[in-house]
């Protein structure tokens, strides 16, 4: 397992190679990429910002939890920060397992947790030159919904 916040372009095939093992019959790779439009507005690029030290820890926690939950050590995740052009990958998750159901579920679980928990923000740039911080996409839990399910320790 491995997790990283990176400002370099994500090498998706390298992530696949990283999880490939002779014991695994299935590998799943998820790539999230910058779309050319969001909610009807033409997007020219996205700046991703992060609370970097925490994001790295939190992504490691997510990957660790996925490994424990789905029974594999072969999950890796990278989230890119900085400026991304349309089509570039902002996040990549690779998961491998002897059986395909678990590989699919692990990759899916990690991206859902990333959307809820990872302290990362994005500012979209539009064709007209304006820029705007945007919240969660439709389909991901809202801030309030996310809040209630965070694993907050009883006391620090």
């Amino acid at each position, binding site marked *: 397992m491995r997790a990283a916040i990176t400002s370099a372009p994500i090498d998706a095939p390298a992530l696949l190679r990283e999880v490939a093992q002779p014991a695994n019959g299935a590998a799943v790779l998820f790539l*999230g990429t910058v779309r050319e439009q969001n909610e009807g507005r033409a997007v020219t690029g996205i700046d*991703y*910002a*992060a*609370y970097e*030290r*925490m*994001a790295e*820890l939190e992504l490691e926690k997510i990957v660790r939890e996925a490994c424990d939950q789905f029974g594999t050590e072969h999950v890796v995740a990278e*989230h890119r920060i900085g400026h991304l052009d349309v089509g570039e990958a*902002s*996040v990549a998750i690779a998961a491998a397992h002897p059986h395909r159901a678990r590989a699919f579920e692990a990759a899916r679980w990690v*991206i859902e947790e*990333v*959307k*809820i*928990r*990872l*302290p*990362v*923000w*994005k*500012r979209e740039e539009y064709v007209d030159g304006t820029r705007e*911080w*945007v*919240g*969660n*996409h439709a389909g*991901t839990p*809202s*801030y309030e919904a*996310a*809040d209630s399910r*965070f*694993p*907050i*320790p009883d*006391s*620090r």
Partner: protein
Amino acid sequence: MTVTALLFASYADAFGADSVVLDLRPGATIADAVDALRSRPGGSVLPSSPLVAVNLVYADARDTLEHGDEVAIIPPVAGG
């Protein structure tokens, strides 16, 4: 005691700063720190109960703070 509040994304824009040092009474909670931030210029950007992490871990608004804590106010996340 003092704690350092970290601000990100739209919150940083609203406050015009990435971080703010807050002077709080001993025993102050996260909610107290958020109230202190809300009274500053730009503080109206904060929701009633923002997500907060203390020293890199998500925390509860009722948790008490200690001198030197790093208190990150987390806007709605948008990773992925």
